[in-house]
C-alpha cells in the first residue's frame, strides 16, 4: 500500500503547473492560445479529480471525471467551430 502523501504530492504538483498554464490563458496573444491553455488545465483537473477519488477513498469522483472529460471535449470543439465559421450552429 502506498501512503496517502504520494497522491497528495502528485495533485499539488499538477495544481502548480496548472497555475503556470493559467498565465498563458490570461496573457496569450490570440484566442486559440487561450483555448489550448484552457484545454490543458481541463486535462490536469481531470487527473486531479481521479486523485481525489484515491485520497478520499470514494469512487464517485471517477464518474465526475468522466463527465468532466466529455465537457472539456465539447467546449473545445464548440470554441474552435466558432473561431472558424463565426457561428456555433451547424
Amino acid at each position, binding site marked *: 500500500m502506498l501512503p496517502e502523501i504520494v497522491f497528495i504530492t502528485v495533485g499539488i504538483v499538477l495544481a502548480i*503547473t496548472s497555475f503556470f498554464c493559467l498565465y498563458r490563458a490570461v496573457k496569450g496573444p490570440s484566442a486559440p492560445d487561450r483555448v489550448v491553455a484552457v484545454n490543458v488545465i481541463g486535462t490536469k483537473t481531470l487527473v486531479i479529480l481521479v486523485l481525489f477519488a484515491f485520497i478520499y477513498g470514494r469512487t464517485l469522483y471517477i464518474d465526475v*471525471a*468522466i463527465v468532466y472529460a466529455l465537457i472539456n471535449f465539447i467546449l*473545445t470543439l464548440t470554441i474552435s467551430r466558432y*473561431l472558424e465559421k463565426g457561428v456555433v450552429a451547424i
Partner: protein
Amino acid sequence: MNLIDIVTLALLGNGIFFFFVGTVGLLRLPDVFTRMHATTKCDTLGAASILAGLALYSADFFTGGKMVLIIVLAVIANSTSAHAIARSAYLSGEKPYEGTLEDAYGRDKNDLDT
C-alpha cells in the same frame, strides 16, 4: 512495498514529467501551432500514464475499467480537439512564426484555390 506499488510510483513520476514538459512547451514556444504540438502529446501521454498507474493500483475491476474508459476518451478527445483548434487557428488568420520552413497546408490550399 511490492511490485505493483513500484510500477505505480514509476508511472506517476512519468506522468508528472510529461505534464511538466508540456507546461514548459506551452510557456516557451513561439506560436500557437508549436504550443499545441507540445501540449497535445505531453498531456495525452501524461494523463494516460498517471491514470494507468492508478488503475493498476486500484485492483478493482469496475474502478480500473472506468479509468481505462477515461484513458480511451482522453486520447480520442485530445487528438480530435487539437486538430479542430489547429484548423480553426489557421483559417481564422493565425500565421506560423518566421522560422517555419514549410507551410504545407497553405500551399495545398493555394493549389486548390487557383
